[in-house]
């Protein structure tokens, strides 16, 4: 059995549900809600980071482009959808650039390695 197969706490403790507003819930919901909408449309709310977001964009774009020609969507609409994808990629690339520039800043701010420290013993 790998560690991935082992449930948290060896399966001895059950999870506890807490309301999003951290208060005791009021009444019984009889109607639909955003959680049900997300489940239906397979929307995950697991805080994707920029690489995850980018992977999802690429997957959705590939699936869409593969199907667009087969669809009956007029060329004008197809063009608008593709323009929208370009805008998504533009914003995503801006975020990548900002992240890269931040990483460069951190890298430049690191003190240069001490020339005399090469022979010193590093951390275990």
């Amino acid at each position, binding site marked *: 059995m790998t560690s991935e197969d082992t449930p948290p706490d060896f399966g001895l403790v059950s999870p506890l549900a807490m309301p999003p507003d951290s208060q005791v819930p009021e009444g019984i919901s009889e109607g639909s809600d955003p959680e*049900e909408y*997300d489940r239906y449309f397979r929307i995950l709310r697991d805080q994707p980071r920029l690489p995850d977001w980018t992977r999802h964009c690429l997957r*959705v774009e590939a*699936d869409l482009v593969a199907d667009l020609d087969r669809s009956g969507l007029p060329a004008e*609409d197809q063009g608008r959808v593709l323009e*929208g994808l370009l805008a998504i990629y533009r*914003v995503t690339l801006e975020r990548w650039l900002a992240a890269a520039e931040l990483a460069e800043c951190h890298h430049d701010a690191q003190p240069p390695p001490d020339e005399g420290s090469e022979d010193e013993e590093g951390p275990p």
Partner: protein
Amino acid sequence: MTREVDRLTRSQREAIIRWKLGHHVFHLMLATMNTRLGEATRALVAGEWTTTRSALVDLARLYDAATSAMRYAADFPRREYEVLVRPSMMPPFASVGFSGVHNTEHAAMLAALRRLRGLYRERQAAVPEPVGAAWRQLLAAQRRNRNNHMFVCRRFVDGGTSLLQEYYAMQRKATEASGDPGGRPSARSCRDRVATTKE
């Protein structure tokens, strides 16, 4: 052993994929719009007109793209909507009142756009013409989106009534019938009424 998916016709598979993939595209566009709305708001308040204009132009483009993405999502025969897609959003497969109003990204976008609209009105006199032109483009794209929404509703449902509108109509009828102005129908009665309406 036959898998469930193998029992679907090609038309049914396309309907399911387009309905949900189209919504995924829609959500990506909405999240991007929300990002640009934040930038537009900040730039407008700071009087950074080039950035404001650029964000507004992108927003108008994304609004039109979202409109077309929803047309793609609904690009399948009405029959598949009636027998497969709409029932999947109704009891017993979904709760009563299932609706696009529960789209978190869309709700965030509308709230951010309302805020931007208020700020824009306050600063309208100081806004340069290129920014004003981009603003008008955005409002026109929003109007096209609203008109298209009705187009999609009417394409699939006579009268264009959504499941949520049906739910509210049932609530009103139940309230009138009970004589209790604050009364609500039970989930069961709503389900029964939805089933009746569907038939």
